């Protein structure tokens, strides 16, 4: 009994010591101790810490310890830690909450690249009323992914990989029709086409709420005002979104897509029954897990070329006693050289401008990485890297608006009624406009 008591006390002491050690502060070695939070499989913590130890070993002023939290509960866990006064010093942030968290005081509104010679691209900079508060560690855009075998089998040329040759929306629909087959091999252009029994779809557009913004822009509309302070959802935006749902409702070239699934690639190209589908650059990384031979092209467009940027940001949290050291570490962490794994695998594009302009660096992360080389690299350069720099590519709403989390919650739920055809996008937006305005206002 006594022995058990002693063991219990020892365990409690170890836990308390662990907690104390995990909280930021200056360690006995005189080094500043930082805690860095990131999402991912908690089982990978050891590997993550090994990567951070490179930073710990290259200098003797700062030591960083990682805590890894499952992505589906990441924000909730951080908020709980913040409520308990035990927030990490710095970490990744859900894109949708970055501006809102800054306004609540969870994120310190500091530019970690202030005074630095080079900065990440402006399109992946989170700004609250013009003030920089965070940067994405990756620079993502959307693309059109296609199954080469399906195009070859139908005798249809691959989609264009340059903005200059991009398809207009009607061309996209026409090609999608040539690639859509029912069980008898008929396409939507054939009179005997059986829309109830489609075995291969020509197109898939990722309808996960935030990705739908690109079609509003493509049709000349907007979701948010330029200053991020008000909801727009004008007629052009509504029409652009309706065009997407009509791929399924009217043209019979796309599977039903309620927009409830984040990972569109796995439900389109990866599922093996769709010839081409839109999704983010990170789809390059799926090559390692899939036998499907796929390529990449530029998005089709409606009235004007459009694309949107994305990428998880890192930020300095309010609880830290060492904002300068946290900023220094985040700069190190955000450097493509120090995050080479996800870049090489295809999950991330580099965040710094020079990686898009320096030919040697371009070759290193595009031509010399197998998952991009197989697309092939030349297509990736024009369909992804060039697009990331093009003026038609704009920051997603979450880079400059607060409360996009609540806006997305309303959009995801309500737009599924437009997806199934029970309402038009115009009807849906008319119904939820007051809710969207209230959600944005917070």
């Amino acid at each position, binding site marked *: 009994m006594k022995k058990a008591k002693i063991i219990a006390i020892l365990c409690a002491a170890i836990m308390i010591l662990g907690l104390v050690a995990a909280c930021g502060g200056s360690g006995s070695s005189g080094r500043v101790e930082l805690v860095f939070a990131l999402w991912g499989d908690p089982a990978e913590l050891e590997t993550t810490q090994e990567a951070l130890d490179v930073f710990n070993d290259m200098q003797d002023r700062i030591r960083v310890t990682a805590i890894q939290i499952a992505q589906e509960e990441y924000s*909730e866990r951080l908020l709980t830690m913040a409520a308990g006064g035990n927030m990490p010093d710095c970490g990744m942030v859900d894109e949708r909450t970055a501006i809102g968290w800054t306004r*609540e005081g969870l994120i310190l509104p500091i530019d970690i690249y202030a005074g630095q010679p080079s900065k990440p691209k402006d399109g992946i900079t989170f700004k609250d009323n013009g003030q920089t508060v965070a940067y994405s560690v990756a620079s993502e855009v959307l693309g059109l992914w296609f199954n080469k075998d399906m195009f070859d089998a139908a005798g249809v040329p691959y989609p264009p990989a340059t903005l200059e040759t991009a398809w207009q929306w009607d061309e996209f629909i026409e090609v999608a029709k040539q690639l859509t087959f029912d069980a008898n091999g008929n396409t939507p252009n054939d009179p005997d086409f059986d829309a109830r029994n489609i075995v291969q779809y020509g197109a898939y557009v990722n309808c996960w709420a935030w990705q739908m913004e690109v079609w509003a822009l493509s049709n000349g509309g907007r979701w948010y005002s330029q200053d991020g302070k008000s909801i727009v959802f004008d007629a052009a935006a509504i029409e652009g979104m309706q065009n997407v749902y009509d791929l399924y409702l009217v043209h019979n070239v796309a599977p039903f897509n309620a927009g*409830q699934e984040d990972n569109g690639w796995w439900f389109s190209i990866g599922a093996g029954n769709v010839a081409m589908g839109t999704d983010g650059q990170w789809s390059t990384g799926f090559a390692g897990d899939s036998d499907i031979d796929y390529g990449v092209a530029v998005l089709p467009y409606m009235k004007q070329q459009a694309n949107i940027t994305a990428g998880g940001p890192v930020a300095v949290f309010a609880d830290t006693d060492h904002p300068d050291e946290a900023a220094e570490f985040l700069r190190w962490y955000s450097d493509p050289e120090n995050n080479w794994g996800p870049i090489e695998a295809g999950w991330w594009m580099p965040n710094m401008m020079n990686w898009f302009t320096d030919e040697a660096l371009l070759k290193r992360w595009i031509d010399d990485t197998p998952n991009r080389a197989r697309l092939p690299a030349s297509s990736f350069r024009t369909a992804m890297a060039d697009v990331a720099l093009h003026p038609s590519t704009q920051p997603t709403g979450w880079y400059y608006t607060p409360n996009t989390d609540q806006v997305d919650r309303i959009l995801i*739920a*309500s737009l599924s*009624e437009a997806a199934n055809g029970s309402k038009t996008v115009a009807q849906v937006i008319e119904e939820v406009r007051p*809710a969207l*305005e209230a959600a944005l206002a917070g």
Partner: protein
Amino acid sequence: MKKSDKPPKSNMVIKEQRAAYVFLIPAFLGLSLITYLPLLAALFVGFTDLTIGHMVRGEAPQFVGLKNFIDIFTNPSIDFFNSILVTVYFALFAVVSSVVYSMFIAILLNRRIPGRAFFRAVFYVPYILPAVATIISWSFLLRFEGGLINYFLVNMGFDRVHFLSSAETVVPSLVMIAVWACGNLIVIFLAGLQNVPRTYMEAAEVDGANFWQRFWKITIPCMTPIIFFNMLMSLVVNLQIVVPALAVTSGGPGKSTMFMTYLMYHYGPRSGQYATASAIAFLFFMIAAILAAVLFITSKNWIFYEGGDDK
């Protein structure tokens, strides 16, 4: 008899009462600390403007009166009135369906059939499966594109159904899943059925009562306390529905699965707007309490206690 004419309590009664109080202390402490105090705290926070920002900045929240309680009904981005409707609709639908289904299955499993133990396990297993795994598995079966059930429907010549992606069918589909997973109710009904006095049945059989007459006149009245218990438990569990909205429907289509607990999650753990979440939580408690009270009050008219209710 006048109040003062009550006979004095015997030592035995007093001892029993003391023992009852002693044994109630742990439950009372647990309930007070884990349930009633947080409930009071939620009520208190609901009258303030507390957000995560106050906690981080170390600022005291301000008292705002009934503002949060008014906001949750008038702010269109919350629309709590809709959440009450969809939650109560789901809960009542699920309670009635679950009780009827589990009673029916329990009666079948109470008969002498081959493999009875196996079938009892089969019907109980869904209850112990993790809720998230269950709902995600069902969502794959019910998918409009590539779902197994729609595959069979198409092959039988029917149109596909938007089980989880239409405002009209999503709640009935979720009720079906809730009913499928109500193995606990079946077990409780089974225990109840085995306690229906054989003497009543035998007497009825001697009097020439057929199966239905015995079922309606003996089984059901004897089972009313169990039916009441199962309805109450089922009501409480189903009012707390949140997993389908979190894992599959995201509150849609439209607002058809924007359940109260889902809103609570979004404004509480997800957004750190604790005052709004607390106001929702407190009203949720009140609604659950009212529905339970209705069940309790009406139960006096239909519950039959064989040995009296020990008033």
